[in-house]
């Protein structure tokens, strides 16, 4: 019957089907959905800019970032557009090359964290029983322990933390929030009809988890992953700032560390601490925007209400 295909109108607030015209480029479906959202597009553009800077760092700012190339604390000029540090290092070179290490640590650790979240959260939610109780307890304990002091104490015991150690410490202490979110979503999915159907038809557990559960929480995993990356970039900068990173490495955090240690504030050398802070904020802002975008796409009610205000 033809009219059965018509959308049933229960309430006017029902998720609206977008009637946007198709872009000419043949993009994959998820890409098109994301680019249809303004916030996500802004976030992606900023992120893309940083990615390009990270990839082409040696081209954009060639040279040794820790080498003395000018007088101490030179103001920004055509030659050194972000000025120089107390040691006469070029801040712009440090920022550009620091982008690379900050992004690698951020996305690398974020990825390790999300894997831990999936393993712990999904196991906890899917297996249930005693396993769930134990894992939930551990998760809740890690949630409530103050993260930064714990990370500082762990890093304090390591003699000279390299990037790998920092990543390991951050991963082991920062998985709890994502694990809890994924656990509750797994619980919902586990009790859904299609999982029950898969179970009764005798599908093995690993298949149910991989092909029924995980694909149905892609957006949640994506936003947890982005959240973890934001957290790691901020925390890594904080660790470097308090002197628990490798002071010879080049990251945004270490530039801030040297600014603080060299009394940049007292001498008025604002250019040594403003650029790295703005970079951290920009990347955090971009990732947050992408997360808001994902939220609006998966939860269309948020936009419907807003767009109809008169």
């Amino acid at each position, binding site marked *: 019957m033809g009219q059965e295909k018509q959308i049933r109108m229960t309430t006017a607030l029902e998720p609206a089907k977008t009637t946007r015209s198709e872009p000419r480029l043949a993009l994959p479906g998820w890409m098109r959905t994301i680019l249809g959202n303004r916030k996500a597009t802004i976030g992606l553009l900023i992120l893309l800019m940083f990615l390009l800077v990270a990839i082409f760092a040696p081209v954009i700012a060639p040279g040794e970032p820790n080498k003395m190339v000018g007088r101490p604390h030179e103001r920004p000029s055509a030659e050194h557009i972000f000025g120089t540090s107390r040691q006469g290092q070029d801040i712009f070179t440090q920022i550009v090359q620091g982008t690379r290490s900050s992004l690698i640590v951020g996305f690398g650790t974020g990825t390790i964290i999300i894997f831990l979240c999936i393993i712990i959260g999904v196991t906890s939610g899917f297996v249930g029983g005693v396993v769930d109780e134990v894992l939930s*307890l551990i998760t*809740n304990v890690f949630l*409530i322990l103050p993260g930064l*002091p714990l990370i500082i104490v762990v890093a304090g*015991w390591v003699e000279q933390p390299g990037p790998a150690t920092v990543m390991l410490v951050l991963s082991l202490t920062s998985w709890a929030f994502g694990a809890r979110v994924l656990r509750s979503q797994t619980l919902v999915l586990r009790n859904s009809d299609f999982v029950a159907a898969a179970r009764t038809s005798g599908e093995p557990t690993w298949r149910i988890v991989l092909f029924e559960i995980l694909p149905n929480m892609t957006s949640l995993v994506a936003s947890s992953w982005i959240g973890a990356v934001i957290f790691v970039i901020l925390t890594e900068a*904080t660790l470097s700032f*308090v002197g628990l990173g490798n002071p010879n490495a080049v990251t945004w955090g270490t530039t*801030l560390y040297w600014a603080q240690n060299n009394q940049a504030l007292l001498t008025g050398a604002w250019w040594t601490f403003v650029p790295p*802070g703005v970079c*951290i904020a920009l990347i955090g802002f971009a990732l947050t925007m992408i997360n808001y975008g994902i939220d609006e796409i998966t939860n269309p009610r948020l936009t419907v209400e807003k767009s109809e205000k008169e």
Partner: protein
Amino acid sequence: MRFLFRRLTFYIVAAFAAITLNFFIPRMMVGDPVQLMFAQFQGRLDPRAMESLKETFGFVQGPLLQQYITYLTNLFQGNFGLSVSSFPVPVIELIGPSLAWTVRLIGFSTILAFIIGTILGVFAAWRRGGGIDNIFLPIASVVGAFPFFWIAMVVLYLFGLVWKWFPIGHAYDVSMQVDWGNPTFLSSVVQHSLMPLCTIIITAIGGWMLGMRNNMIGVLSQDYVTMAQAKGLSDRRVMLVYAARNAILPSLTGFAMSLGFVVGGALVVELVFAYPGMGYTLLRAVQGRDYPLMQAVFLVITLAVLAANFAADIMYVLLDPRAR
């Protein structure tokens, strides 16, 4: 009451987990921690200090379990060991004053940020698309993207150094005697605390505001709010007793995670302002490899966070009859 009892049990478990972590972290390090400590302090350390260090961490002869019991016994006797950097001052004596400064600064600013943020969130949701919604929300999102300590640096730079409105560093004028009865001393304390206080409030407010706003928007669409309006109640009563009182409940539940985050950030803010609180002490301890002090500060911060969470739980029970 069962709810509070359950929460209390959980906090005890969490405290025990923190104590145990404290014991195992040094032992999980590559290599022998005793050797590590020796290497760190080679030639610089009093042999007696070395002995006390070993004792504090339970690095006595014997199996792991015996070491653990020794460690716990020390801890429950209030024996956190002796400081390495200011040997032989007991750690507990160093912590006392800095804990007091932190509780005053971070405690006060966190509570204030929670209250202001929550109130702003209530109004932002009540007049959606109005002034607060359009001005504070974008500001809060932008400020929230910056690291706490960076905001602290900017505040210190602008208000402390460029405009010289406030004194930089420390909790009071160090040329003065600590005397809480002396108004000049008190005003010095207030002046020294204003910059860190405002920094923590500015950075923490956005999160509470955003959370409360979103909870409120959810609650405002509930039938009981509509019915309260239809009953003819005043806007004030609808907003506070019907909407806000329900909307604040998830905020209190989310207090645990947010508090850990806020306190972590606030501790680093102390470092920037050289404010002699727990964060400053912790970072000094880390830089000076003063392990007993470092461990003790971590435990005390953890216990303080757990206590604050329990206070939030009590608030929850007072506001929500379903938890009673």
